[in-house]
């Protein structure tokens, strides 16, 4: 129960932060990506605020033996910069630049009633399903 309430609280704070920071407005996001136009630095401020906070706070948190409500920290263990990471990040960036949506803000947009988010979210889930299907094929017949 504690874990569920903790996740609910973290999600709520995350969602409110996105709205206050202006990240749920695709025009603000695209304005940041448009370096050759009227550049909007808001997203840079959000990233600085967020990574500044995590860069300091995570150090203290990860000094603990374990998290409060679990026996271990669940951190990614894979450290290699490989082709999948590079291709995936570039493909994600193209989609991000086309619509001004990434996964967290678009979920908030869908809940708040932005109809373009209702187009984007099912397409995003379909994209993830496609990726999984390709992954399975690759596992069966290595190239």
């Amino acid at each position: 129960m504690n874990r569920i309430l903790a996740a609910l609280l973290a999600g709520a704070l995350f969602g409110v932060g996105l709205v206050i920071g202006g990240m749920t407005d695709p025009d603000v996001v695209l304005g940041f990506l448009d370096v050759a136009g009227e550049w909007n630095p808001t997203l840079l401020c959000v990233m600085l605020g967020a990574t500044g906070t995590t860069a300091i706070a995570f150090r203290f948190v990860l000094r603990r033996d374990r998290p409060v409500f679990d026996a271990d920290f669940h951190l990614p263990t894979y450290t290699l910069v490989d082709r999948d990471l590079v291709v995936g990040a570039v493909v994600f960036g193209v989609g991000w630049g086309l619509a001004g949506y990434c996964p967290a803000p678009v979920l908030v947009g869908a809940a708040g009633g932005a109809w373009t988010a209702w187009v984007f979210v099912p397409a995003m889930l379909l994209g993830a399903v496609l990726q999984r299907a390709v992954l399975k094929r690759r596992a069966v017949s290595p190239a």
Partner: protein
Amino acid sequence: MASWQAGLLGGVLIGIAATLLLLLNGRIAGVSGITFNAALQRNPRGESAWRWAFLAGLMIAGGIAMRATGQVALSPAPFAVVAVAGLLVGYGTRLGGGCTSGHGVCGIGRMSKRSLVATVLFVASGMATVFVLRHVAGAA
């Protein structure tokens, strides 16, 4: 409040949210991973519950905040482009193992080299895409 101040405040709240999830549950607040794991994977019961709770908190509180501040903004892209963009974001975040929250906010906070590379790449590729759309193809 100027937009850069609001951005900074919003960012700090996001950072605190990610810190809480790590401190309390030992989990990374990567929204693409949480979403796809909850919606598309078969997990043991307890493994799904916290993910759905995070998403419920994100959507309910975020949706209310969006309504309260009167900023239900739409994507300026046409319908078909929004759909293609969604496909690419879903495919790319799964292949690359994260999005702006997992790689950007949490990965950089952990000083992960993979996340730093991913963040630089998706910001650069997003900028290149907007450049081509607006300044080469002449879209709005």
